[in-house]
């Protein structure tokens, strides 16, 4: 049976503009949430988000190239470049048809859409820029990465809201396992911090306000939590068939060993217990891992009451007695909820936790909640050998993706 390992990681996100910086910030328990700077948020009741600080696209791309890149494609390319470099891969032309790209995004070219529609409706423009469609399409980031890296193998984009990049990575894992590719770039990208998008999320009434102290706004599993905080960022992982990686002496960060996916088929925004639980069980079954051998869960942990209580029940349902022993943390408390890329950010953090033997904390945890009574690794990172870990993604729309990774030995 073909095994799949992670041999490269790349991140461009609010908590760090490369993978090491990203994880170091998480380990320190530092939140990147701040008052929004990409536009003037003063008309909004929610004025905060986890934005990438001091980002100047012209520092990374020629002007001509930027004409065709929405912000979500720019950051996808930056994360992909780092992942490729960290893998040390140098593919020959004949290997390119066995190298593909799968990325997830929820909102794709949100910035371009927002600007375009503002021009169209508010400024009465009679037409939109001809690059609008190639910039906003969901597969733009995947296609840009394929062109940049010469990836000619199986490539596509997944869009399942907050699970998008979980599904992307899981599908990429299965493409290698099923001998349809040897190397895959898998991850996600999201740049949703626009006036229209924040206003839309505000209307769902799931956002934390926290304008007074943005860095403390997102408090998953804590009794005083107020809701989720939107974030932006991209994370990419190089997945590689084990022998392919061994033959070139690659550094192996972790092994991807299971993927579980399911649909709640119950409610468009309220998660069920059964759906996510089935996804967790499916991932464990594929990896032939017993629940008691899981040392870390990177939770979906959005910081909404509905999610945090339900997810706690899901973990109890699947892990039984082991539920109170497994370390659980929500890194969304720091990098925010980056929707389509959040699963990729979180799987990267999970892989780094395995690689470094350190579990990042749930930041901003202040008070225990009787309905969330497990070990959420509050505020302080924990040194621990992680043998097996799962990363949960339970999306709006009830579409769940759970990834299982293990320490490679």
């Amino acid at each position, binding site marked *: 049976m073909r095994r799949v390992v992670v041999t490269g990681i790349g991140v461009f996100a609010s908590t760090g503009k490369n993978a090491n910086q990203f994880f170091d910030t998480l380990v320190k328990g530092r939140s990147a949430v701040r008052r929004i700077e990409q536009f003037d948020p003063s008309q909004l009741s929610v004025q905060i988000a986890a934005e990438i600080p001091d980002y100047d696209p012209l520092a990374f791309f*020629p*002007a*001509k190239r930027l*004409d065709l890149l929405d912000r979500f494609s720019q950051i996808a390319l930056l994360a992909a470049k780092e992942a490729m470099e960290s893998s040390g891969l140098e593919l020959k032309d004949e290997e390119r048809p066995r190298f593909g790209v799968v990325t997830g995004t929820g909102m794709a070219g949100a910035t371009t859409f927002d600007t375009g529609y503002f021009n169209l409706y508010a400024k009465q423009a009679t*037409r939109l*820029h*001809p*690059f609008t469609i*190639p910039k906003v399409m969901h597969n733009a980031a995947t296609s840009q990465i394929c062109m940049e890296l010469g990836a000619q193998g199986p490539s596509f984009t997944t869009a399942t809201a907050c699970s998008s990049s979980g599904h992307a990575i899981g599908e990429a894992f299965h493409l290698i396992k099923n001998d349809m590719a040897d190397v895959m770039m898998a991850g996600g990208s999201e740049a949703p911090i626009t006036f229209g998008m924040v206003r839309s999320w505000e209307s769902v009434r799931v956002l934390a306000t926290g304008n007074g102290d943005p860095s403390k706004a997102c408090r998953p599993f804590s009794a005083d939590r107020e809701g989720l905080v939107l974030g932006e960022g991209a994370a990419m992982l190089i997945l590689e068939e084990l022998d392919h990686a061994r033959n070139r002496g690659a550094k192996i960060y972790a092994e991807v060993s299971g993927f579980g996916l399911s649909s709640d088929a119950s409610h468009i925004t309220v998660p069920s217990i059964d759906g996510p639980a089935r996804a967790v069980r499916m991932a464990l079954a594929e990896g032939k891992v017993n629940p008691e051998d899981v040392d870390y869960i990177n939770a979906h942990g959005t910081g909404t009451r509905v999610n945090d209580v339900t997810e706690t029940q899901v973990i109890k349902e699947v892990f039984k007695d082991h539920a109170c022993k497994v370390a659980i943390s929500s890194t969304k408390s720091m990098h925010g909820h980056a929707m389509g890329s959040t699963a990729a950010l979180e799987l990267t953090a999970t892989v780094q936790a395995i690689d470094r033997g350190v579990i990042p904390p749930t930041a901003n945890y202040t008070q225990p909640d009787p309905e969330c009574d497990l070990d959420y690794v509050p505020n302080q990172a924990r040194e621990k050998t992680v043998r097996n870990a799962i990363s949960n993604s339970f999306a709006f729309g009830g579409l769940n993706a759970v990834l299982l990774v293990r320490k490679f030995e």
Partner: protein
Amino acid sequence: MDVSKKVIEIIAREQHLDVAKITPDSTFAELGIDSLDGVNILFALEEEFKLDIPDTIAQNMKSVRQVVDSLTRVIEGKDVSDLVAMAKGEPNATA
């Protein structure tokens, strides 16, 4: 108005090229302008000159001179049906 000068300025701006490198005789191929770039340049020209360039003409612009000539005729309100016919490849069309 010097249409040629303005067209060259717009092409330089949209393609991020040095204006000195573009002459009325430059072809799109020489300037590395592909079909998508061409659409972008047309969009900028239409915005600048506040007019519509018919798609059939637009698709056949392959050089700076063709752009200037077609644009001049559209600006002057001349009948461009012969250009349209030629662009469509009609056998009796003449420019």
